């Protein structure tokens, strides 16, 4: 037997230039923050990447004022076709600097370069291209003949897709004529700050995009600020709830994209090899740090053993390690805090009696790592079947009939996404119709596109991002 070892194939870091410290991007300039600065670290080796300014209340106020002034004087009155050209320009610069963005994203976030290079950054450019085209066509979007922007948007995004979530927020907001104050997650601020530089390169008028860094306090201050008209948040359901409470009784508009515990239903007549790929892609894409991850596998009992064997064989080929290695499939867990949470829930799974399995894999000694893991024999009542783990951990449950699959799939306070695998067309549509989830991937999983609306039912939030539907959040309708 020949062992085909893949030699290290690291992507070069030379393309990125990480500064020692970063300020806040307000009114077109990098300025000092007045909160306690914090550090962004590389989760793959725990090295410090940069000191990051923290926005305090006065800084947030400054950013909101800058956004308001830009809205009143420049961006709001600007014809749509001119806004469009700025967005096209930004999209092009993102493509031109795509390698730099991908490498920086992988360093700051821990995700494999294959994903940041082939998924995140191309989608970021696509998002700006897509919404650029809407900027001068809003009268045809079905929201009235002259829909107006909302005003100043306060946007708070998570650490799992730092740049992509920025694009999901900023592109439609700007296309509709709003200005924004965006807060990236405290563990992954670097690509947002590089994006600030791209805004300058595109000669975007100062104040249209403001990027303020900080932790939860900064985010709370931003969403509570009286000067903003709209809040868009992607993150945990718990924080989403707090924001909804904060906005109660105000006139601020709100869209939320929150947690999930997606069921991935595999029927007995599925294309099994592709289903296994879909299961793997569903839960191990981006280390499982995906709100729409297919974290609950519901497999029909008649094929459960076969599917599990195939899945284990496939998992044994997953390559865990250096995010910058081009052959890495699973990178680093984003933070020590997240790693603790994944470990805690996995231990709960074992304690509740589920069977834990991971393929043999050597994890690096430095940094935050977690082996791809499946739990078999999971019951609906187990914590690992109900709570979002947000890591590379799959809970496997079985079902006997289509009705049982639907019942189990929908038996969750979440409703973001779901998967269904069958070669029978009518069963796909029957299942898709009954799943209470905003996105249903049939015979595929974890696909994203700027033309495709995305968002949840129930406690997975409200509002849609992407497509024509994504405009509504940023228009005064």
């Amino acid at each position: 037997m020949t062992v085909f070892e893949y030699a290290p194939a690291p992507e070069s870091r030379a393309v990125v230039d990480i500064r020692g410290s970063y300020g806040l991007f307000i009114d077109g300039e990098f300025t000092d923050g007045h909160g306690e600065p914090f550090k962004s670290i590389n989760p793959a080796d725990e090295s410090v990447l940069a000191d990051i300014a923290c926005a305090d209340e006065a800084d947030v106020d400054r950013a909101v004022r800058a956004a308001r002034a830009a809205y009143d004087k420049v961006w709001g009155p600007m014809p749509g076709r001119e806004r469009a050209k700025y967005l096209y320009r930004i999209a092009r610069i993102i493509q031109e600097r795509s390698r730099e963005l991908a490498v920086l994203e992988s360093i700051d976030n821990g995700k494999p370069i294959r994903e940041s290079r082939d998924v995140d950054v191309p989608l970021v450019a696509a998002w700006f291209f897509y919404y650029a085209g809407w900027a001068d066509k809003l009268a045809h979007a079905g929201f009235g003949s002259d829909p107006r922007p909302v005003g100043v948007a306060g946007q708070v995004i998570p650490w799992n897709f730092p740049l992509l979530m920025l694009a999901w927020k900023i592109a439609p907001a700007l296309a509709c004529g709003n200005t924004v104050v965006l807060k990236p997650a405290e563990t992954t601020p670097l690509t947002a700050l590089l994006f600030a530089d791209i805004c300058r390169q595109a000669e975007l008028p100062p104040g249209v995009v403001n990027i303020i860094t900080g932790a939860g306090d900064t985010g709370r201050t931003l969403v509570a600020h009286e000067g903003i008209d709209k809040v868009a948040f992607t993150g945990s359901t718990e924080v989403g709830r707090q924001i909804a409470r904060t906005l109660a009784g105000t006139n601020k508009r709100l869209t939320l994209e929150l947690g999930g515990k997606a069921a991935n239903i595999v029927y007995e007549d599925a294309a099994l090899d592709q289903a296994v790929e879909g299961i793997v892609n569903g839960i191990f894409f981006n280390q499982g740090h995906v709100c729409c991850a297919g974290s609950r596998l519901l497999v029909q009992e008649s094929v459960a053993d076969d599917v599990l064997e195939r899945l284990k064989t496939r998992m044994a080929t997953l390559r865990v390690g250096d995010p910058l290695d081009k052959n890495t499939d699973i990178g680093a867990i984003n933070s020590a805090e997240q790693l603790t949470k994944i470990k805690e829930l996995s231990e709960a799974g074992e304690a509740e009696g589920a069977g834990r399995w991971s393929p043999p894999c050597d994890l690096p000694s430095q940094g935050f790592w977690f082996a791809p893991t499946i739990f078999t024999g999971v019951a609906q009542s187990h914590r690992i079947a109900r709570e979002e783990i947000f890591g590379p951990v799959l809970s496997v449950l079985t079902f006997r009939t289509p009705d049982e699959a639907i019942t189990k799939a929908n038996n969750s306070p979440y409703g973001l996404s779901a998967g269904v695998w069958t070669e029978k067309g009518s069963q796909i549509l029957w299942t898709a119709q009954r799943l209470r989830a905003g996105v249903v991937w049939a015979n595929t999983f974890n696909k994203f596109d700027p033309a495709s609306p995305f968002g949840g039912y129930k406690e997975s939030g409200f509002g849609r991002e992407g497509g024509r539907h994504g405009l509504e959040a940023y228009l005064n309708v």
Partner: protein
Amino acid sequence: MSERLAVRKTYKLFIGGAFPRSESGRSYVVTDAKGRFIANASQASRKDARDAVVAARKAFAGWSGRTAYNRGQILYRVAEMLEGRRDQFTTELRQTGLTKPQANAEVDAAIDRWVWYAGWADKISAVAGAANPVSGPFFNFSTPEPTGVVAVIAPDSPLLGLVSVVAPAIVSGNTTVVVASEPAPLPAITLAEVLATSDLPAGVINVLTGHRAEITPWLASHMDVNAIDLTGAPTGHVHDLEEKAAENLKRVLRPQDADWTAEPGTARMTAFLETKTVWHPVGV
């Protein structure tokens, strides 16, 4: 010869297709515009609200599973029956202080509004849905689906306002718990009597009468209610109701200045619709 003694009507709640009294055994006095007694209406309790939510949830799968055409037919049939109750509605509206022409006009508008929404049943998906041109070998389509159980706090426009908030919620397949206007609840119960003999399945519309300030917090905080329309929420309570609604991330329609005679647009329907997007590969 003495005058004939009128038979007075007991106004009850409408829950799951039946007309129970409040489980609390309470009622409150409904008066006309001049303060004269008209009737006792049931004063619903939190438990009545709970029962109404259970009834609405039970009805959801069946109602949302009907074809859009069938929902449209059923709603149109309701309009036909409303027409037959014109006199009763007119009388009830006159008791709230409208002149006869005003009351007639409002009944006309209410029935027309109901017909307008009935016609939307099999059209809203075409307007709010889409086939999305994604970059890859996938067919991708978005369809609007009903949110689920919607709590509707009806405005004080007792008939036109009422149908203008109820019809858009149910036409797409949602089921509702409606809190009627507190001072003028009678048209809501009359509407319920129409519904009870129509083809509308039991539980699709449930009507509670009573003190809004007492009932609405229980609906706003109920974890099995998916959305809440605050149009008729008592002044000063909106903040609290929204805070309660946040607990399970209800979709909240905030109160807005409404001209019930104006063309409504689709916003009241889309407020209680979820967009579901389905992907499927295209291959051989």
